[in-house]
């Protein structure tokens, strides 16, 4: 019987545990659907192997040189690295993730990609972003907001850290109609 996951902290802990326990991402099969050949060529193979997103938020963000980008739920770093390339040496890309193992992988991948000096990976929750007010030009995320049991709180936090006029480009899943209750309450269906 599916465990009842109606409590917000329980959902958060389940998602964190699920992402912390996997030993690989969805890999090239998924990455090739989301990123162009040119974009994939800009990434270390290890980062591509850890693809877990659902879209390509960097492509739609129209980043400019010098901008500060926050990648919420940065995982192993694919979108943070692409963002770091777009904002150039004067810009900065900050990856935020709740799973320490993911941040470690992302740091290694950023180093392999040659963008370590313009990236930073921090641990924290999207519902409590450890950054000052109005410190970010653009916030991106990829398949992450649906993981939050406190979406309004997460959106309020994103708004807080954006500078006035700042923008978001979020790739995420939407579902029309209700999922069967067996799935809605299943731990791995929340994490996936």
């Amino acid at each position, binding site marked *: 019987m599916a465990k009842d996951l109606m409590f917000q902290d329980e959902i958060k802990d389940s998602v964190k545990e699920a992402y912390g326990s996997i030993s690989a991402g969805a890999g090239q099969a998924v990455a090739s659907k989301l990123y162009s050949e040119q974009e994939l060529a800009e990434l270390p193979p290890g980062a591509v192997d850890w693809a877990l997103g659902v879209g390509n*938020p960097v492509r739609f963000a129209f980043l400019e040189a010098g901008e500060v980008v926050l990648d919420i739920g940065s995982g192993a770093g694919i979108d943070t690295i692409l963002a770091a390339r777009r904002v150039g040496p004067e810009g900065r890309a900050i990856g935020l993730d709740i799973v320490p193992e993911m941040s470690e992988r992302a740091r290694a991948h950023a180093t392999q990609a040659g963008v370590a000096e313009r990236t930073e990976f921090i641990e924290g929750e999207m519902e409590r972003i450890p950054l000052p007010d109005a410190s970010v030009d653009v916030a991106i995320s990829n398949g992450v907001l649906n993981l939050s049991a406190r979406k309004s709180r997460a959106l309020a936090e994103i708004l807080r850290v954006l500078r006035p006029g700042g923008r*978001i480009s979020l790739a*995420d*899943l939407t579902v029309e109609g209700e999922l069967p209750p067996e799935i*809605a309450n299943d731990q791995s269906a929340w994490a996936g």
Partner: protein
Amino acid sequence: MAGALAERVFAEKLGRAGFVDVWVGGHRPTSIDEASLYPLFTDDVIRLMRRTIPKERHDHVATAVIVKARKPEAR
């Protein structure tokens, strides 16, 4: 996926949070087969999805979208 919102609800939440110029695009149907490529979906939940979701929805159980919006300029 279990926490995904309907597109209209997503856009409304952004507006209520204070974002403006909300835009939703880049729609891409997501199938159960595609979900099965992600290690976060266990074999059990993939089987559960195939069993409990009507067959005609198996090729489109969710939609991947891009959502863009902007924080208003300071007055």
